[in-house]
C-alpha cells in the first residue's frame, strides 16, 4: 500500500472512516520508530553489556527477574529487556555506575561475609534471606549495617520497574490502551458508582 503522508492528513481532514486511518498512520509511525531502533535490533542476537562485567550483568539479570518475575499473565523483567535498559543508562551515567556497580559489589561482599559465597552461588534460601532484608527501609533502622544495601535495592527496584512497565509486555500487562487515532474521544465508560 502506498499512501503519502499528505493523503493521510487529507483523509483525516475530510473525516474519512476511522478504519482506513487506523490502518495507515500507525504503519508510518512504526516505520519511523523502526528506523530509530534499527541499529539496536540488528545487534539483538546476544546482548553485549556496555557497562557491567559478565558476572555483574548476570547478577543484575537475576535480581531484575526476582524483582519482577514472569507469571501466568506475562513475562518478567528479563523478557521485558529491563537489564539491557539499565545497562545502557548506566554506561552513560557515572552516578548510576557508582550506585549500581558499587551496589552489586556490596551485595557480593555481604554474601561472602555471611555465607562465604557470591550472591549467585548462594542457595535460594540465602538469597531470599538477604533480599528480604534489603528490600524494606525499616530493616535499615533496626540493622544499620545493611543501609547501603537498602539504598541500592530501592534504586534498582525503580529502574527495574521502569524497564518492565515501559516494555511492550509491561504495557500490555497493565492494560494501557491508546496512542492511536480516534475520530471521537469516547470518554469514560459506564461504570456503576461513577
Amino acid at each position, binding site marked *: 500500500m502506498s499512501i503519502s503522508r499528505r493523503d493521510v492528513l487529507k483523509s*483525516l481532514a475530510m473525516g474519512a472512516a476511522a478504519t482506513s486511518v487506523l490502518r495507515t498512520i500507525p504503519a508510518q509511525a512504526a516505520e519511523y*520508530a523502526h528506523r530509530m531502533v534499527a541499529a539496536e535490533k540488528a545487534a539483538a542476537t546476544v546482548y553485549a553489556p556496555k557497562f557491567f562485567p559478565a558476572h555483574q550483568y548476570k547478577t543484575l539479570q537475576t535480581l531484575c527477574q526476582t524483582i*519482577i518475575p514472569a507469571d501466568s499473565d506475562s513475562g518478567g523483567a528479563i523478557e521485558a529487556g529491563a537489564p539491557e535498559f539499565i545497562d545502557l543508562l548506566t554506561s552513560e551515567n557515572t552516578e548510576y555506575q557508582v550506585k549500581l556497580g558499587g551496589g552489586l559489589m556490596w551485595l557480593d561482599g555481604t554474601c561472602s561475609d555471611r555465607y562465604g559465597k557470591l550472591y549467585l552461588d548462594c542457595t535460594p534460601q540465602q538469597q531470599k534471606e538477604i533480599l528480604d532484608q534489603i528490600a524494606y527501609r525499616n530493616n535499615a533502622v533496626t540493622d544499620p549495617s545493611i543501609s547501603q544495601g537498602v539504598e541500592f535495592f530501592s534504586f534498582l527496584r525503580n529502574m527495574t520497574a*521502569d524497564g518492565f512497565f515501559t*516494555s511492550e509486555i509491561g*504495557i500490555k500487562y*497493565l492494560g494501557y490502551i491508546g496512542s492511536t487515532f480516534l475520530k471521537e474521544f469516547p470518554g469514560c465508560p459506564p461504570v456503576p458508582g461513577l
Partner: protein
Amino acid sequence: MAQVIRSPKTYDVCIIGSGAAGGTAAKILTEGGLNVVMLEAGPPLNPEKDFKEHVWPYQLPHRGAGVGGRASADFGEFLAPNGAWEIDGEPYTVAPGSRFRWFRSRIVGGRTNHWGRIALRFAPVDFRARSSDGMGDDWPISYDDVAPYYDKVESFIGVFGTKENISSAPDGVFMKPPVPRCTETIIKKSCDQLNITCIPSRLAVITEAHNGRPACHYCAQCGRGCISASNFSSSQVMIPPAQKTGRLTLITGAMAREIVIGKDGRAEAVSYIDKATREERRINARAFVVGASACESARLLLNSKSAMFPDGLANSSGAVGRYLTDSVGSSGYGYFPQLAKMPAHNHDGVGGMHMYMPWWKFDRKNDFLRGYHIEFGGGREMPGVGGFDGVCEDYEGYGAGLKQKCRDMYGTFIGFAGRGEMIPNEQSYCEIDPGTVDQWGIPVLRFHWQWSDNEIKMARDMQETFRDIVENAGGTYYWQVRPDGDHPYGIEDGGVIIHELGTVRMGSSPKTSVLNGYCQAHDVKNLFVTDAASFVSNADKNPTLTIMALSWRASDYLLDQAKKGNL
C-alpha cells in the same frame, strides 16, 4: 573575530525569535505587505522527523529517559525539541540566596512546539491590578483593547472550550470541547459538591478541521509535537502562512547579540552570531520586533549598550530586567479507589486536561490577594519512566506481589497543580552577570528571586483545596508539604512553571516602564517587544494566548505606522 559581515539589504522589519510572539508578528506583518527577516537561535524544525508522536517507550533504547537517564529532568525524551533547563555552552547564573530555573528552547517555534496548549484570556480585572487592590501596577491598556485580538487569535489558531460567563475567566471563540475522562468525571462531581467551579478547559487543540489542519485524533501526545498540526505551534500555524507570502526570510542558527542604535536615535541593525560559522553578521531593518522570550528579550536590550543608552537599549527607565514574575506553582496528588475498578479503556483524549478549575473565590475575602486556577490530570496514561517510583517506594519488597501491586495501582492517581498570580517585587529581577559570557561571547543573565508572603499563603490555600477535593471524592491525599523550609507549602522555585515575564514591561509612564500599550519602546520608536516581557502583571492565566493577542495588536499598529510612512 573576523570583520562583521553586513547584509546589503535593508528589510522592513527584523523579528528576533520565532515563538508565540515572533510567529504572530511574522504572519501579520508579511500578510500586511512588509518584507520581514526573522532570526531564530536554534535549528529549523521538521515535524515528521523531529516529533516522536505515536512512538512507544520500548521503541527507544532509553525508553524515554534519554541518554544516561538525564532527559527525565527535562520532561523526558519524548518532548518536542529543543527545550531544556540547561543548554550546553549557554549558561545563566543565579545570585547567592536565590533559586531560579530558566527553561529555554532553541528551535523554530520555540516553546510553542511543546507547551501545554492552555489558552486562557486575562480577565478585565487582571489589567487593573493596582486599582483593584493597591499592589503592582495597572496596564496601560484594558481588556476591551485586547478582546478583539483574543477573538482574532482564537479564531485563527482554534481553541476549544465552553461559554460559562465567569468574570475571572472570560469566554472566547471556542470549538466544542472533548468529553470528560473518568478522572475528570470524579473531580467535577467532587468540585460541584464543594462549590468549586470546574468547567471544560480551554486548550489550543482543534476538535474540528480548521484552515487545512485536521482535527485532533486524541492520542494525548501534544507535548511531543503534533505531526498533523492539530494543536497550536508557531512553527506549524503562524510561520507557514508568513512563508506563503514570499516575504519572510527565516535565518536559523542566529543568536542575536545586540541591537545597534543609529545617530538619529532609531534602531538600525541587529548584530547576531551565525552559530554554524561563529561569525558575527549584521542585518539592517527599519523596525525591530523582539520576541526572544521574556528574559532573552531583556538580556538583548541590556546587552545593547551605547552612548545614548549606557544602561541598555530603551532602558532610560531602568525597568529592563525588573518586575520579573513567574506563576505561583504548588502541586500534589491523590489516590482514588474508584479508579481501581475501572476496566481497561482508552483514556488518552487530548494532550492535556479536558476540565479545569478557574479562579472561583473572587467574590469573597481571602487571606491573600489575587487568585489561582487548578489544572489536574492522571489516570490510565501511557506508562512512562518513573511512573512506578511511588508505588515501589510505598510497597517495597519484590516479586509477584510487587508486580501485581503496580498493576492494581496503575491509573488510580490524579495529580493537581495550582497556578497563581505573583505580585512583582523588588527582589525578583534579572541583570547581566558581570563575570560570565556564553560560548558566543554574549554576557549572560543573573537571576535574583524571592517569593513574598502573599504567594506562600496562596500555595497553602492550593494545598488545602487539593486535599478537600481528593478527600471529598473518597480518595487519599498523598502529598506532604511543610509550612517552612525552601519550598513552603510546596511552592516551586521561580521560573519552574515557565511563565516568567514582566522584564520589559509596558506602562503609561516612560519613567517606570519601557514600552507603551502597543509594545513600542518609549525611548526608541521603531523598537517593539511583543513577548511576555511586555506584561505588567502575571495573572493566573497561562501567558501564551495573551502574548499572541498583544503581538498581533502591536503588529497591526506597526503596519498602520508603516502605511503612514512613519517607519
